């Protein structure tokens, strides 16, 4: 008997990082690593399951910057070069490690990268977005949109700026997925009352929040976080279930810390002798992670004490963990049915990059979980938010609490003593963008080009990633540079708008660097 619905949500996002001005750029590796470790494994997992007759029903967010990067010819060409080198490196490693305890891991990595390359090139022809679109068209995925550049909506000062993030994101979604989005991943799950009205205006029917948004919402939720609430503007809000999600996320009790899983921090980029690894490093020759890792988590030991990684055992652990996750969902559903007098929907959202990039065995875990749900039981069904709403159309009206899914649950990750200086600049750019759009509400030709680029620079400056990176203390200088560059370029372009005089060389240069959203229409700010 069916007891509950499980809604797995994977939020795939990377900030727009594209540097044509350099032959290679370290931060572009974020994309290349995620393609090999997360996006291709997830895409192919879902596709192969579906082709085997297994029912796949998940929600997946692919943010506009990520879609733009995945479709960018320059980045596609650079990814091919990146993966070719990894295939070559791992081929050599298979020979070098023969007869050692690392041979199994070396074989596995070579197999993985060669498969990634083959799939990217031959199966998907470099167009992963088309691959995900096909899965949506086949009913396996519900793909949702996000803010245009993952801008943190509650910290924007002008409603026009919030609306533009949603509208530009929606237009980009339609470009890539050929239909209107029905759901949205609010950047950082950042909700504040009023945001829902903008979603309703855009025709969006559901969004996700963290658990306390609904638990602390007003009035008190009759079914806690196990049913959507409907905001005053008629959009459904669904909250993540912390108790089941913790098994995947938690640094205390999460699956990714299993001693048999691959150790993220021990990498061949540091282990191999310099002469052998040098051709696979960036031009600066500095040792860095290359994505080939021969050790397992092992336990509470130093990196040099880590033991050899054995993928076959890790695979078994992934199956055990999938079974454990499923039984937790079953237990929770059975416990809830009496209390909430309905089947619960257990919402389980994750950063997609957790699966594969951070937790290498994550895609395999998902594969096993989906198979177990399909073959081994009939109490839990995979469902999307709209599947639930179709089954239970009547839901409680509530105003969720302002909240995010960041540490401590509110805005501290994005506004704190290290990042507070950013907001005055961002807000002034919002004011100036709106003022410019109103001054030229129907610009054509080069004036329109200029205003569209002005909009791109504001959108890029608003990316929540810059404040996030500064707060977490990783690649801080890059995030500061990116924010200042976009505000700086915005101000240069604004001077042209204000003077009604275009510096074409400068405009050409900025357009070539920040080429996101060719379809953008500055009138989103009207």
């Amino acid at each position, binding site marked *: 008997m069916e007891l509950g619905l499980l809604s797995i949500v994977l939020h795939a996002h990377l900030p727009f990082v594209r540097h044509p001005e350099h032959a290679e750029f370290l931060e572009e590796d974020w994309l290349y690593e995620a393609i090999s470790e997360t996006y291709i494994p997830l895409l192919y997992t879902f596709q192969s399951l579906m082709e085997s007759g297994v029912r796949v029903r998940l929600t997946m967010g692919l943010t506009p910057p990520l879609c733009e990067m995945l479709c960018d010819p320059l980045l596609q060409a650079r990814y091919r070069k990146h993966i070719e080198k990894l295939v070559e490196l791992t081929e050599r490693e298979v020979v070098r490690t023969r007869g050692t305890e690392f041979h199994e891991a070396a074989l596995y990595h070579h197999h993985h990268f060669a498969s990634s390359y083959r799939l990217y090139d031959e199966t998907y022809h470099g167009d992963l977005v088309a691959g995900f679109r096909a899965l949506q068209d086949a009913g396996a995925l519900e793909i949702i949109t996000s803010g245009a550049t993952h801008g943190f909506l509650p910290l924007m000062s002008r409603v026009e700026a919030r609306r533009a993030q949603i509208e530009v994101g929606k237009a980009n979604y339609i470009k890539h997925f050929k239909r209107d989005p029905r759901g949205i991943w609010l950047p950082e799950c950042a909700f504040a009352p009023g945001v829902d009205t903008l979603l309703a205006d855009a025709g969006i029917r559901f969004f996700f929040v963290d658990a306390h948004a609904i638990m602390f919402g007003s009035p*008190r939720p009759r079914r806690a976080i196990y049913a959507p609430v409907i905001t005053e503007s008629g959009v459904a809000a669904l909250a993540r279930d912390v108790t089941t999600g913790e098994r995947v996320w938690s640094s205390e009790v999460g699956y990714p810390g299993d*001693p048999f899983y691959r150790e993220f921090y021990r990498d061949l980029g540091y282990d191999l002798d310099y002469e052998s690894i040098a051709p696979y490093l960036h031009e600066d020759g500095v040792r860095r992670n290359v994505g080939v890792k021969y050790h397992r988590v092992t336990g509470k030991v130093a990196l040099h004490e880590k033991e050899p990684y054995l993928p076959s*055992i890790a695979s078994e652990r992934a199956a055990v963990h999938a079974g454990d996750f499923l039984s937790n969902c079953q237990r929770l559903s059975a416990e809830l049915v009496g209390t909430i007098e309905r089947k619960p929907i257990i919402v389980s959202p994750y950063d997609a990059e957790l699966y594969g990039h951070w*937790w290498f065995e994550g895609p*395999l875990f998902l594969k096993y979980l989906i198979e177990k749900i399909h073959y081994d039981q009939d109490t839990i069904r995979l469902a999307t938010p709209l599947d639930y709403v179709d089954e239970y159309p009547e839901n*409680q009206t509530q105003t969720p609490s302002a909240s995010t899914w960041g540490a401590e649950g509110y805005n501290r990750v994005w506004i704190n003593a290290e990042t507070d*200086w950013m907001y005055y600049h961002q807000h002034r750019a919002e004011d100036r963008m709106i003022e410019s759009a109103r001054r030229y509400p129907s610009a054509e030709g080069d004036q329109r080009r200029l205003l569209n680029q002005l909009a791109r620079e504001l959108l890029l400056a608003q990316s929540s990633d810059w404040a996030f990176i500064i707060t977490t203390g990783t690649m801080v200088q890059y995030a500061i540079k990116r924010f200042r560059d976009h505000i700086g370029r915005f101000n240069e372009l604004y001077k042209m708008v204000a003077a009604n005089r275009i510096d074409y060389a400068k405009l050409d240069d900025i357009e070539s660097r920040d080429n996101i959203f060719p379809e953008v229409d500055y009138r989103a700010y009207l």
Partner: protein
Amino acid sequence: MSIFTSWITSPGGRKPIELELPVDPAAPSAPAHDSDEVTFVDSGMEIPESYGVDIVRALVQDPFHLMVYWEIRPESYSAIEGLFPRGEVSTFRPFMRLTDLDAGDEAYVAIPLSGKYWFSVNPSSSFRIDVGALSSSSGFVPVVRSNVVRTPAGTVSTAVDEDPKFRVDTPRFVKLLAVTGFATDRVLTDVAKAEAALAAGLPMPEFVTQPSPSLIDAFSQLPVAVRTAAVRIAEGESLAANEIEELPASLRFMLERLLASGEFDSELLTAAFMHLLPQLLRNVLDGGILDDPAHPFHLPPRFATLGSSEHVQRPHVDWSWMPSMAESLSRRQPVIAPDVLDPVPAA
């Protein structure tokens, strides 16, 4: 100085309180952008220090904190001087006024003509900031007014649905809080127990995961009444009326406001206390995000670093709850494990 002390609430009173505060007490200046003398660091394009406009804007950080930035052009500030007698103008000083629109409380801060400032405030309240001049005889003269912001409640709502289909009674809601992990918190209760044991010189109790020493230390710095209440809650008790009376004024004020709604019983109030407790710890520890890899900060689920994959720390876990491995590692031959990228077997 903790930023928590910078906003003096005066429930029931509207008397302006002038705070002697350094400008921008909580927030260190923005990260240095200047190039290092030795190594060139590309910090990006130059951006203006000011924009030559009159503006003040407030942003919410969490239920207890607001950030405000402002800029007043000197000519705008001077313009008000023409409206007052010359003798009085000489006493003008630029000031900022924070108004709690719900309680009617006000706080005043001496400021320069541009800058940013962090206020500690109450949850579930609306605020507005005015920037202007404080005069010796006319009081505060506002020049620019901010947007109105509202802080989140930080705990469960006092409102219960009027529609019987969605009305949830308190005992059932308490049960729902327990299922969702919001009734109490394992980590905080462990911290309370650990600190109590340390303070009493007793042996440390057995924990699933040992509470972080930094968290225990922070807890030990909380007021005695807060610690006593937390320890009793950790032992499964509910917050008693006499304990509420002994809590610090700001916390007592919040809890009494919830009680006054008539929709809180002692169990729900206990849960609310636990919801607010992390913010008290935050104020003890203030100075950054709760994310020290050496001492991962384990707060309730909603406060833990669950949000983004960059936060995932490699855990050191007791895996005894999982089935043990049947096979020995050492005797295994290399095997190519199933990979998600393997071709689909023919049907």
